[in-house]
């Protein structure tokens, strides 16, 4: 790998641009999709069949071997949007960072959502409906609501249900969640759609402490991402 190609790969990642590193085996000729698939950069243009496979690999976030080329997608990090700068959110941060998530904590209560309490993550002080509209969760985004406060959680869940987020979880007991479903139903969400919300949030590991709750939530997010059965 040339330092120049590595720099281009890093620049794409810094710009949150999905690309694929394509390596011809075994001689190691390399190109970046889609940059080097364009006719403009003919010097090291990718064969059309490899470019097509690279597009599919990036979309599926899956490695491919096609016509002797190793296609390695480098997608932007998965995103985790946490609503509520609460204790459990703090506990989730180091785990989520280690798992490679880009994290944003959303909480309009400025006293809670401080850089001191939430080191190293993006903080959004907007109300969740505005925050969600700006952050535009996609299929590589997980959303967790933790405030217990319907004023804050409900608009976040309303927006989450209208997004293709791969994970939606809401803290709260079964009773709290039943009431929540009633309110969200009044906003026009069908029961099947609301079944996407995982509540009580997290894998059932009988979590008690904030750290254990954080662990159960992060474990469930990984399980959903990897297609594991979670017993719900």
């Amino acid at each position, binding site marked *: *790998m*040339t*330092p120049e190609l*590595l*720099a281009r*790969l*890093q620049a794409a*990642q810094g710009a949150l641009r999905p690309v694929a590193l394509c*390596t011809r*085996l*075994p*001689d*190691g000729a390399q190109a970046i999709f889609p940059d080097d698939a364009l006719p403009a950069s003919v010097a090291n243009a990718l064969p059309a069949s490899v470019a097509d496979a690279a597009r599919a690999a990036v979309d599926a976030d899956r*490695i491919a*071997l096609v016509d002797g080329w*190793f296609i*390695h997608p*480098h997608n932007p*990090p998965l995103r985790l949007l946490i609503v509520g700068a609460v204790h459990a959110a703090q506990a989730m941060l180091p785990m989520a960072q280690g798992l*490679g998530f880009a994290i944003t904590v959303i909480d309009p209560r400025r006293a809670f959502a401080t850089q001191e309490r939430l080191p190293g993550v993006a903080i959004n002080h907007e109300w969740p409906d505005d925050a969600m509209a700006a952050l535009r969760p996609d299929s590589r985004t997980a959303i967790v609501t933790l405030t217990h406060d319907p004023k804050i959680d409900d608009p976040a869940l309303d927006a989450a249900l209208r997004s293709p987020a791969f994970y939606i979880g809401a803290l709260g007991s079964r009773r709290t969640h039943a009431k929540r479903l009633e309110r969200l139903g009044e906003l026009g969400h069908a029961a099947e759609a609301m079944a996407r919300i995982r509540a009580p949030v997290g894998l059932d590991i009988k979590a008690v402490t904030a750290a254990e709750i954080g662990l159960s939530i992060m474990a469930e997010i990984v399980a959903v991402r990897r297609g594991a059965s979670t017993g719900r």
Partner: protein
Amino acid sequence: MSDDLLTTAAAWRANGEQVAIATVVETWGSSPRPAGSRFIVSDAGHMAGSVSGGCIEGAVAQAAATTMATGAPQLLDFGISDETAWEVGLACGGKLQVFLEKLG
């Protein structure tokens, strides 16, 4: 995590070290790390990441010395039918192929 490894590799090189990057390109059976996993090594003895559960990193690091010296990439096969793999202890029963290249 791979992304962090590329950043680390760039930093080692900027520090004047020779760097090799190993990437799992294909796996068969129960190999512990999926395709795309990376392991980086420098001539100063720095190592980061993994291409297995620790079974073959030593052998990859040895092979990396050649790639760092010549600049030529290598495609390495490890598996239970491979005597080298037994020597370095790939006991999990899986097979994997690793692409090894120099950063430079």
